[in-house]
């Protein structure tokens, strides 16, 4: 059977039709793009997703509420902590449970560390897609340390299952706080080094400047979220504008794209916003680690073993590394969710590609994909 997507391709054979994926080094997972090109210049790139669809939402209807938590990790395995957090908050809202302060602090600490790790992957792979290999390795080196910390905290390096309904699974291990603070001291020096190495490299800037500009209106209309939205100049961060958890207690800036390399909303802005966000995350972790001693020791609220919320529905939002992650959970009063829906940043980011890919070069498509920081499982779920 002919794929329906091919009916959309202009068949006058003047252009070359290229399958950019599903196995391609720059698609960051299993994504396909049907690219119509005239030489190096693309007419458009039509994304074809779904290769990683694991029907996680359907699974959410089959498992009990707490049992779904490990599956949320698989929604976004580059920054699984946020997927945990979003789901936990949604069910807590349904149950009307108040999370103890220490758990909220721990959530903020773990999430911000994972945000740094995720952004390191994002900027690192981006530099690699642009052709520089060394910065990525440097990024991964720092990320390894964060993975070590998270492993010490919850026993897992990638799929954490750390946040639980009503709190978090474990308290800080001994000596962890000082080690993380020492790491952050080093990490704050790493960021300027990274900038010297690649961000302000003239070739790198020229490759990204004014490429794939997403205007403010487009970004909002296409539902871009997180760093992609901020890269287009929209000053919006859920942590500050619709605060949840421990975030109202911390001071941090929200970096917004300013057209550092040319135009607001180009690939460089989306990239650099992430670089600046890492710095802010480091600030937040530092503040949280300094104040966590003042919170009472309790890390779990009282949640019944058989989680059975009243009928109702709720939308929870968290600011994940890839922007707003929303869980829409509907309960029908039984111990299994009637519907679990995860709204993810990569899905909407992916949908904008067809519209803005016209006239770009093949090399720019690579820059565009990585600047949007799409993670394939998060698109398909």
């Amino acid at each position, binding site marked *: 059977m002919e794929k329906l997507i091919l009916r959309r391709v202009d068949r006058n054979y003047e252009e070359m039709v290229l399958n950019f994926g599903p196995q391609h080094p720059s698609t960051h997972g299993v994504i396909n793009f049907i690219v119509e090109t005239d030489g190096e210049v693309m007419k458009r790139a039509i994304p074809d997703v*779904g290769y990683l669809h694991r029907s996680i939402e359907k699974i959410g209807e089959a498992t009990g509420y707490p049992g779904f938590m490990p599956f949320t990790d698989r929604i976004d395995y580059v920054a699984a902590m946020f997927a945990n957090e979003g789901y936990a908050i949604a069910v807590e809202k349904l149950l009307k449970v108040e999370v103890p302060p220490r758990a909220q602090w721990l959530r903020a600490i773990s999430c911000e560390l994972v945000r740094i790790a995720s952004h390191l992957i994002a900027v690192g792979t981006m530099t690699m897609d642009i052709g520089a290999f060394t910065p990525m390795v440097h990024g991964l080196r720092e990320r390894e340390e964060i993975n070590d910390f998270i492993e010490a905290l919850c026993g897992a390096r990638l799929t954490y299952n750390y946040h639980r309904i009503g709190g978090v699974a474990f308290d800080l291990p001994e000596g962890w706080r000082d080690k993380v603070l020492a790491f952050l001291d080093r990490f704050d020096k790493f960021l300027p080094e990274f900038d010297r190495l690649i961000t302000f490299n003239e070739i790198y800037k020229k490759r990204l400047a004014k490429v794939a500009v997403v205007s403010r209106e487009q970004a909002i209309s296409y539902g871009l979220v997180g760093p992609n939205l901020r890269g287009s100049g929209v000053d919006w961060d859920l942590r500050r504008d619709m605060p949840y958890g421990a975030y109202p207690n911390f001071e941090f800036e929200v970096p917004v794209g300013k057209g550092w390399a040319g135009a607001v909303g180009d690939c460089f802005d989306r990239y650099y916003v992430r670089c600046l966000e890492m710095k802010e995350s480091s600030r937040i972790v530092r503040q949280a680690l300094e104040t966590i001693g003042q919170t009472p020791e309790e890390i779990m609220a009282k949640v019944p073993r058989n989680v059975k919320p009243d009928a109702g529905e709720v939308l929870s939002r968290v600011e994940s590394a890839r922007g707003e992650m929303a869980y829409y959970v509907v309960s029908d009063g039984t111990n299994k969710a*009637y519907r679990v829906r995860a709204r993810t940043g990569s899905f909407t980011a992916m949908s904008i590609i067809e519209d803005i890919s016209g006239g770009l070069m093949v090399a720019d498509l690579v820059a565009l994909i990585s600047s949007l920081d799409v993670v394939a499982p998060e698109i398909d779920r």
Partner: protein
Amino acid sequence: MTTTEIHDRLKARFGEDVGPLSEPKIDAFAVVKRERIVEICRFLAKEPGLELDFLEDLTALDWPKNNQIEVVYHLLSYRHRHSIVLKVQLDRAAPSIATVEGVWKTANWFEREVYDLFGVTFEGHPDLRRIMLPDDWIGHPLRKDYQETGGYHGFSNVRENPLVELKRLDDVRRAEAANAAGGVDGPAKA
């Protein structure tokens, strides 16, 4: 602006076509009339003072009991930081509704997903294809009564529990060992 105020303005403009705000169990929603969804959405997105410019989510719920499929719209305003949830109830046998792709571009893919997984047709959608599943997939998996067809083009989508297979191999080996020993040390289990 609170959700109630948004709802009031909506009510004032569209009258009976907008249902009452649900009893605020947790998140309140308003059921609106299917035929007017595009108008309502455009009003909410463009009207000064409301400007719900961000379609946060568009999904659906399947209620076989009521023979309904509900399409759910989550709207948020960046400027005013308020939000509202709209729902439209559709006939489960032939669910169909106008697309809001003209209001928010992001609805394009959300609606494709709902079409794929719930089988809701969006009239006027520019590119209504399945998004997650192959084009020739049968059925809409997120419907409550979805039954797996048992395979796709000859590929089975069920798999024997690996433990069962391992146990079988174990049994075979044990039987062989027992045979080799000539059944001296006790009766061999088949």
